[in-house]
């Protein structure tokens, strides 16, 4: 019986939008218009768009902060309109830009909010709080009993993240969670989020207006404009095959140099094909191509060995290859390699 359930869980998309639309009262046009897409288990989907594009409205319809005016949304196969609202929301983690930690509760109490509402036993909650704090990079002993007012923005958002994950949600909704933080903290948290997501195989829907963030974090990206999905594809596909002029302009698909800022070494590395020597120059797969170009100039190397986890060689990039970058077609580039 359990096997069947697990099987079912993996077959059914975690989230499915079917012709969903939203029009606010007294509005002339739909904020979100006829949107359909699915999200599978373990996907990290970023939703990219300008302000007013409908991206936040889209997200907020998932946990029914906004109610859709047309269409259906299915969560693990069930129509969310038929689910008990609070039970449903407790299965979906929610992280917002302004963070919204409860100022009158300690960090531990904040994180424990949903578990305590679900009536978990105290020991289970305490353990969970410690696990989560460690996961988001905060020492439990030091942070458990602190109040949000005494935390920095970055620390607060880490707690916000932990709080959203407390009850082991099937889906995480994140609305520009790092938007209010300084650039350095943002980078750090982005990297940590990716690690967490890979470790737990969490399904995430992440809204942002920052192209680099969207492409860095997302397995696939939904590009929204004027309430409609302009393109829903992997970053590579978007770059090399933009669906329309809007997308093309947005990601500067015509601009070769711009592409360098969005792709990483691992995406274009070709097969190793030879035995690495000690003198070989190496470059990590997560280095962005503009930095790779800079390294080429600095070192005048003919090629770099691309390394993956633990410094293991996984591929190579040659100068020749790089020079012809503009002619790369998308089949010469594979984003899955990055996950190695």
């Amino acid at each position, binding site marked *: 019986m359990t096997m069947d359930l697990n099987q079912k869980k993996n077959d059914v998309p975690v989230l499915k939008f079917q012709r969903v639309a939203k029009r606010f009262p007294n509005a002339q046009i739909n904020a979100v218009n006829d949107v359909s897409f699915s999200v599978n288990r373990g996907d990290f989907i970023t939703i990219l768009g300008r302000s007013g594009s409908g991206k936040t409205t889209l997200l907020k319809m998932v*946990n029914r*902060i906004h109610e859709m005016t047309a269409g259906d949304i299915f969560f693990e196969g069930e129509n969310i309109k038929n689910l008990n*609202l*609070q*039970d*449903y*929301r*407790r*299965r*979906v*983690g*929610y992280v*917002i830009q*302004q*963070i*919204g*930690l*409860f*100022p*009158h509760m300690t960090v531990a109490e904040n994180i424990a*909010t*949903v578990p305590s*509402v679900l009536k978990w036993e105290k020991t289970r909650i305490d353990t969970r709080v410690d696990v989560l704090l460690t996961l988001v990079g905060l020492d439990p002993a030091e942070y458990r009993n602190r*109040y*949000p*007012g*005494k935390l920095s923005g970055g620390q607060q958002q880490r707690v*916000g993240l932990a*709080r*959203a994950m407390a009850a082991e949600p099937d889906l995480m*909704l994140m609305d520009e969670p790092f938007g209010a933080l300084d650039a350095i903290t943002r980078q750090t948290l982005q990297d940590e989020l990716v690690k967490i997501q890979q470790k737990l195989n969490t399904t995430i829907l992440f809204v942002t207006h920052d192209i680099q963030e969207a492409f860095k974090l997302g397995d696939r990206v939904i590009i929204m404009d004027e309430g409609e999905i302009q393109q829903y594809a992997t970053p590579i596909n978007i770059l090399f095959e933009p669906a329309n002029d809007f997308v093309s302009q947005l990601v500067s698909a015509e601009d070769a140099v711009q592409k360098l800022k969005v792709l990483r070494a691992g995406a274009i590395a070709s097969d190793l094909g030879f035995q690495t020597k000690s003198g070989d120059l190496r470059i990590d797969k997560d280095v962005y191509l503009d930095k790779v170009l800079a390294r080429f100039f600095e070192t005048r190397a003919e090629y770099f060995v691309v390394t993956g986890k633990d410094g293991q060689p996984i591929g190579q990039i040659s100068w020749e290859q790089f020079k012809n970058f503009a002619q790369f077609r998308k089949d010469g580039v594979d984003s899955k390699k990055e996950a190695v």
Partner: protein
Amino acid sequence: MAAFFSKFFPYFTKHWDDMGELLLDHLQIAFTVLGISLIVSAGLSILIYRSEFLSTAVLGLFGAIYSIPSLALFSVLVPLLGLGKPSAVFALVLYLQYILIRNILAGFHAISPAVLEAGAGMGLSPAQLFLRIRLPLALPIIIGGMRIAIVAAIGMTVIAATINAGGLGMLLFEGLRTHYPVKIVWGTLLCAGITWIANSLMYEIEKYCLKKANGELPAKEVIKSIYGKKVA
């Protein structure tokens, strides 16, 4: 002066039970009024909380009532409810609405929307959201309002003596009528005394609630903005 002081303390020893009775009477009126006022203001606040129009209208109405001197307010009610406690209690309940409703609304409106959105989004039911989040955060300002209200109630109960409602004001009027300043002084002292105690007690409670709401705006700053001075 000497004549005064020679009679001052003996008066207490001779009449402390009478004074005590009036004191208790006074407190009883004040607390009854406060209790009824809280229930009424809570009910009204629930009704008008969501509507800006209603909030402004209701606060405007009670604000006008608040500006009326208590003696005048009593005198308007006496033809309806007669002399004595009923008129006083009714008038005071009306009077306190402005302070209490204003502070209740302010307290709840002061909560950061992000906090409420996060709470709702994570699946807290409206009741849980209210008890665990809204109430503790709004409490300092509400208690602040209660503090002002009880001080006002004690003060105005003194005046209620003019319509035979009882309380320490009776002592004052006896002293005035019989040209016996000692009574007036005792009345004043007792009244100022219970005002001070009530104010201090409520202030401690208010401070405690504020600390609990940790990291929230100090109550003073929020109330300043309701007075109409928008800090740029």
